[in-house]
Every structure is written in structure tokens, then in C-alpha cells.
């Protein structure tokens, strides 16, 4: 008997930096200055795309993520600018 277990209709938006290794999420929005935005677009970061966090480097180093067939390394400070919802 289901009891108060209904998930909220809309998941609160996380950033890429809060994901854990193995998590798959969808990009909601990118809040970066123009130069970084361009670079991210060119690497395949687009709203609605699926993104997987593969691993994090030790000592709060960069993150490794995968979009489609491309693996990308980026720092936490950059990952904070990318909003995602967990799939």
C-alpha cells in the first residue's frame, strides 16, 4: 500500500558537480560565460543531452564525463555551471 512515496513531479535541478560516479543525468541548462559556453557546445554539451559521470579524480580534482561517444574531463568549477536532472 503506497504511502507518501509519490516522487515530486519535477526533480530539483542538480549540477553536474553533485552527481556520483555511475550516475546518468540529462543536461537542463548551461550557465557559463561565452567562451566556455562555446567550448562546451563544441564538445557536445547541449540541453536535453544525456550525460554520465564516469569518475572523479582524487583530492577533489576534475571529473570525467561521457556524452554520446565522447569522454570529457572538466574541473568542478566548470561542472557547477551545468544544471542536470538525474534520470
Amino acid at each position, binding site marked *: 500500500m503506497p504511502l507518501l512515496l509519490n516522487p515530486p513531479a519535477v526533480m530539483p535541478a542538480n549540477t553536474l558537480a553533485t552527481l556520483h560516479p555511475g550516475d546518468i543525468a540529462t543536461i537542463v541548462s548551461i550557465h*557559463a560565460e*561565452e*567562451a*566556455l559556453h*562555446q*567550448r*562546451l*557546445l*563544441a*564538445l*557536445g554539451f547541449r540541453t536535453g543531452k544525456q550525460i554520465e559521470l*564516469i*569518475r*572523479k*579524480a*582524487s*583530492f*577533489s*580534482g*576534475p571529473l*570525467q564525463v561521457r*556524452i*554520446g*561517444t*565522447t*569522454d*570529457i*574531463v*572538466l*574541473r568542478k*568549477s*566548470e561542472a557547477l555551471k551545468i544544471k542536470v536532472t538525474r534520470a
Partner: protein
Amino acid sequence: MKRIALLGMPNTGKSTLFNRMTGGSARVGNWPGITVELLSGKILLGDDMVEIIDLPGIYDLHGYSDDEQVVRHFLHDNVPDLALVILNATQIERQMSLLLQLKQLNMNVVVLLNMADEAKKFGITIDSKKMSEMLEMPVFLLSGKYGNGYQEALQAVTKALRYPTPGMADELRSQLEQDEHIATEMARVMKQAVQIPARLPENLTEKLDRVMLHPLLGLPLFFAIMYALFQGIFLFGQPLQSGIAEAFAWLRAAALVPALSALPTALQGLLLDGIYNGVATVAAFVPIIVLFFLFMAIIEDSGYLSRAAFLMDALMARLGLDGRGFVMLLMGFGCNVPALMGTRVMRSRAMRLLTMLVIPFSLCSARLQVFVFITAALFSPHAAPLVLFSLYLFSFAAAILTALLFKNKFKNNEPFVLELPPYRFPTARQMLLRGWHEVTHFLRRATQFIIAGVVLVWLLTHIPFSAVPASADTLSGMIGNALHPLFAPLGITPELTIALIFGFVAKEIVIGSLAVIYGLSGDALGGALAQQLDWVQAYSFMLFTLIYTPCLSTIATLKSEAKDNRFTVFALFWSLGLAWLVSFLFYQGARLLGY
């Protein structure tokens, strides 16, 4: 002559294809509108000679990175007759955007979809005919490594070159704004000409990364690999280096000395001890540089460099550098010159300059020779290894201090976003070509600079000719005495000051110059030093030797890589100032403590 520009994203096999097309005949050249040097080669296509230019790999024509600006300026000022665009077929869904941006420029374009065999393994099917129709440009599937499709592509290039390039380039910026159009166009072509499986099969890269980038194993493995490389360069390089030195010495004794014996003594000395020794000094660097670039090519082409950057970035970010800088810093422990040249992989100029400012503090093998000699002469066999180790610590400390002090001055707004390419086996041909290019480049730049420096030092130590060479009566002796007030607070004697002046040219000749100054060699020289100096003075001298300018080759490389005289002068004076300060603090501190 018609011009073909080679364009593509990084890691598409662009350089491999370029080397294949030009067969190693490529050379570095300067182009209007841009400050960096580009590789280009001339080849015979059909009946005409054409020039192929290898442009830097870029992700985006609109981008703001240095490379992207270089490509934009190049296309604007040197409109090519044909753009040969190379796309990585395994990443086609992402790479097509660059192609469509180029298409908007109305250039003659031939498209090569490289790594077609790899794409097939991933289950990606590409209908190149269909794609060609839709894009209205020739599209070829290519496997760069095995050469499939290469001949057809060359024929298409030859054919396309017969037509004049339609238009292009003046309103480059304004044309580059129409991005929405690209997204729909891309979706249309992708849908009809490409099929990609929803989830890719796990491959070798993933399995390797699980070990190489392991949270605990990753860093130790990285250090083990770097250590092996470093050892490898010396294991193979040092015998070659001494072999070359011996060959030059033999040539000198067997042929040059007899041939020049008729000339006046002073001229003989200038030619042999000045110019000839200078050439020999430069030549001795060659094996190390070749090996360094062979190993660097393996690290880079195999895809490990980006992974090393991933592992080391956490520390380097706090110093205003990034992961790749650490790899170069370690390489500098072999020889600073190729490590400086290796910073070319960095895209941001500010970060590259900061890295180049830091690299000369790496305790290179030439400095190690000096330290080994002096520690053996002045310290007990028990203490010697500890002394050497402490110098390595000082080397790191100087690098870290410099980075921390100047990271705000060389602030780089370039975010750290790197593609992690799959592991690949580098081809032997690619590696050898790379080594060859770097050596010819190095020789061209360094030769004149070093020869001038060596001649200058020779003159300083021999004028006036009536005096004993390198004695107090020569110019160098006078300079040594004049500089003495500056070096006395460091405990450095006038004799050692002259040796430091020599060390400016190359650290390899520091001990040799001391031998000339004292008129002794080997153990006898060590004994004389031990009698004249105490350990505090000797350590102070070693600290100064460690931190001040490594050698003329390094300065020449700094100058040609940075293309900025003010930066070069700054790097020179900063290292001199830091060397003085550290030696001063050490010497006076030790004396205060009663040593």
C-alpha cells in the same frame, strides 16, 4: 601554387594524415596574420605542386581559444583553394558541426571521415554517398592507420583543386553567427546518413582507464610511468651524448688541431675552444631532444597525456597551472629545453608562459653533474645522497614558490575542459617524424645563440692574451672581482664567480671551467675545493647554481617559444634574483647559527 588547408578537431588523426601526405618533407613556416608557426609541406598532386598546411586542431570556428583564433585568422588572410576537413567517424554526431560551419564559408571542401574501421567496431554505420549528396561535397571513409580509402581521397582532392574556390572569408565573423541553422542541418544529415547504437559496447579504453585512472592506483602508476620515461631518456641518451662528445673530441684532435696549427695561437683558440666547442655543446643536446620527443610522442599520441593531466590537475590548479604543466615540469628534470618546447600543447598563452617560467627550476641532468662532483668533494659519502635529495626539494620549492607568486600575473581565463581520447597505438613513423622535426627546429634556433655565447665567454677568459687564461688578470677575472661584493655575502669566492659566469652558457662546463681556473682536474680539483671552501659555502654555491639561469639553450628556447623579449628578460632576472636571495638567506642563516 595552390593551397590546401587541413582542418579538423583535435584527436582526429589529422597530423598522421598530414605526415602521410607530405612524407616528412614538411617544414615550419610563418604565415600572414598569425603569430604561431604552422607546419606545411609541398607535394605533387596530379601535374601540379600544391602546398598543404596543417592547421591546429579546433573544436569550433567561433571559439575563443588561441588555436581557434589562429585558424580564423589564417583562413581570413590566406584563403585556401581547398579545405580538407577530417572528422573522427566515431564521434560523427558531434564533429559535423565544425564541417557545417566551414561549409557556410563557401569554400571548396573535401571531407574525410577518419577512423572508419573503429566506428564500425562501435556499430556506427555511415552512408557516405548519402551524406555526400546531402552536404553537396565529396565525402570519403578513411582508415588513416591502414591507408584504406586514401588513394580515392587523393584523387578527389586533385579533382576538386581544378575548380576555383567559390568565395569566402571577408564577412567571416558575420557568417559565423548563423548557428541555429547548423543544428537543424546537422540533425537532418545525421538522421538520414548515420546510425549509432543507443549504448556503446565496453571497449579496451574503458578497461584500461579503470586501472590507469583508479582513485588509489592512478597516481602511483603515473609516477612510475614518468620515472620509467625519465630513466629511459637517460639510459639511452647519455651513452649517445658522450658518444657524440667523444666523436667531436676525436675530430678535433685528429683533424682540426693539425689543420689549424699554422694559425696564430689566439685565433686557433677562438676557433677551437670558442666556436668548435660551442658547436659540440649544441650537438650533445641532440640525442636527448630526439629521445624526449619520441617518448613525448608516445605519451601524447597514445592518449595518456590527457589522463596524466586528469590525475595531477587537483594540485596544479592551486598553483595556477594545469595537469599538463606537471608532466612538463617532470620532463624538465631531464633537460629544460625540450620541456619548454613541450608546453606547446597548452592552449592558453598565459598558462603557457607561467609554465615556462617555472620549468627552468627543474634540476636538469647538467646541473646534477655539478652537484655530484661538489657533494663528492665536500660531503661524506653518508651525507652526499641527502644533500642531493635536498637540492631536488629546493628545485620543487622554487617552482612552487614562483607559480604561487606569479599566478595572478599570468591569470588564465581558459577553463580546464579537455577531451579524453581513446587509447591508441602510436605509429613508429609518426614518432620518428616528430623527433626529426623537433631536432631540426632546435638546431636552427639554438646554434647561433649558443655559438655567440661560447665565443663571448672565450673572449672574456682570454683577453688580454698576455694573461693566464681565466686568471684574475683576464676580463673574466676582473668581472669576477668586480662582482665579488655581490657574491661575498653568499660565501661565493671570485673563482667560483667565474665558474658561474661559465655556467651561464651551459652547466656542463662549470666543472671544466673550475679545472681551468685551478689548473687541476678530477680528484685533485675536488681536494683543492675542499681545502678552500667549507660545506656552507659549497651548498650556497650549489643553491645558486640550481636556481639561476640553466643555460643559454634554455634562454634561446624561452625566447623563441614565448616570442616575447620582455618575458624572456623577466624570466632571466627573476631566476637570478631568486638564486641570490635563497643563497643569501641560506649562507647568512647558517653562519648565524654558528656553522
